[in-house]
């Protein structure tokens, strides 16, 4: 699924997924203006964890993995 076909709904789903399982926090501050967005960083982190191609962008494989049934415990270390 080329990037252009990622819908806004996909974007919202992905953002909620990354907040829930990969500690994505709200975007704020200067980093938004420069460099890789926090969202893209978290997408890369998620792609690395699941052995997907690491692009930092939402693509068919990534969306398909996000939509698989799964455990509710986050994947990033959240011991406390």
């Amino acid at each position, binding site marked *: 699924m080329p990037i252009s076909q990622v819908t806004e709904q996909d974007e919202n789903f992905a953002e909620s997924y990354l907040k829930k399982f990969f500690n994505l926090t709200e975007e704020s501050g200067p980093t938004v203006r420069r460099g890789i967005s926090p969202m893209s960083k978290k997408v890369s982190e998620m792609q690395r964890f699941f052995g997907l191609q690491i692009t930092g962008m939402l693509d068919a494989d990534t969306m398909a993995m996000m939509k698989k049934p799964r455990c*509710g415990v986050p994947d990033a270390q959240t011991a406390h």
Partner: protein
Amino acid sequence: YSTFGNNLKWQKNSLTYRIENYTPDMTKSEVDDSIEKALQVWAKVTPLRFTRIYRGIADIMISFGTRDHGDYYPFDGPDGTLAHAFAPSSGIGGDAHFDDDETFTHRSNAGYVLFMVAAHEFGHSLGLSHSDDAGALMYPVYSYRNPDTFVLPRDDVNGIQSLYGPNPDKDPSVPEPKPPKTPDACDSTMVLDAVTTLRGEMLFFKDSFLWRSYPQSNTPQQSLITNFWPSAPVNIDAAYESRVSDRILLFKDRKVWAFTGYNPVPGYPKPLTSLGLPSHVRKIDAALYDTRSRKTLFFVGNSYFSYDEARRTMDRGFPKRINQTFSELTNKVTAAFQYRGFTYIYSGPYMYEYNLKTRRLYRVLRNSYFLRC
């Protein structure tokens, strides 16, 4: 594997559990059985022992709930999040919650097998976090496995024993199934069980796993064979895509399974003789469909057969000796498939690239050539 860290583990080996309520999907005894078996998965490989209590506060409180169920981590309705559990500690620590908007089953894949979901969550209850090993029980994504044949994978055994050590009561004289290891696509010594195309994709089979590679994706994705076809065999001998019937056929020992897409074809598995193979053939080593001649080649030992699937007849003059036709192939054929007009025959850790019409060998490559290491 990974653990929660911060020494988040139980400081005792005797733990209590209590089932607070039940899902309407299963009988009470099925739920009890699933929960008890799921805890035994971990007890088998550690000093941990679990005792059920019926009132009061247990270390591991087990409950079914939907949406907001009182722990600030609301469930999300059908599918999506199936359950969650908390790391060892007092209070909510160790507790496991199951989303009752899911359909849980005792054994069938018509829903989510409670035993599998519970065994995973109890890994968290005992101190394990998620593993990125696609074959591990602690991999975050659900995958169907047959609860009757389930063996805790090596990655999970290493993880839980890093917290609690091995089971001191294990009787070394009693043989136990070996914890399965997840194969590594880039292991240069790996010998694949089977390779096939499937509707434009390539599937590589090894043990209970497959890698799926398709043109739009640079990274082959590993998953359990049973994730695609719950009733499929593992550790298969051969596989091929039938263009005649638009099916994928998987071979193991004297039987052949057929699937159209994800769906098993009724009437399968069938005996190998149903594909024209003589009754003395006990297994095949590899199979490939030649799109040009529309024949299926079955490799058996040092010979190969040519089968006309449309006519359901074995071609005259077969079996032939493999090295009569493919002189470079001196060892057993382990897998075979055709891709973009070239025929690839695997033998040990190598893959031979042929033009089947001219029998010309172009290249000798490593097994991992298509696995993009």
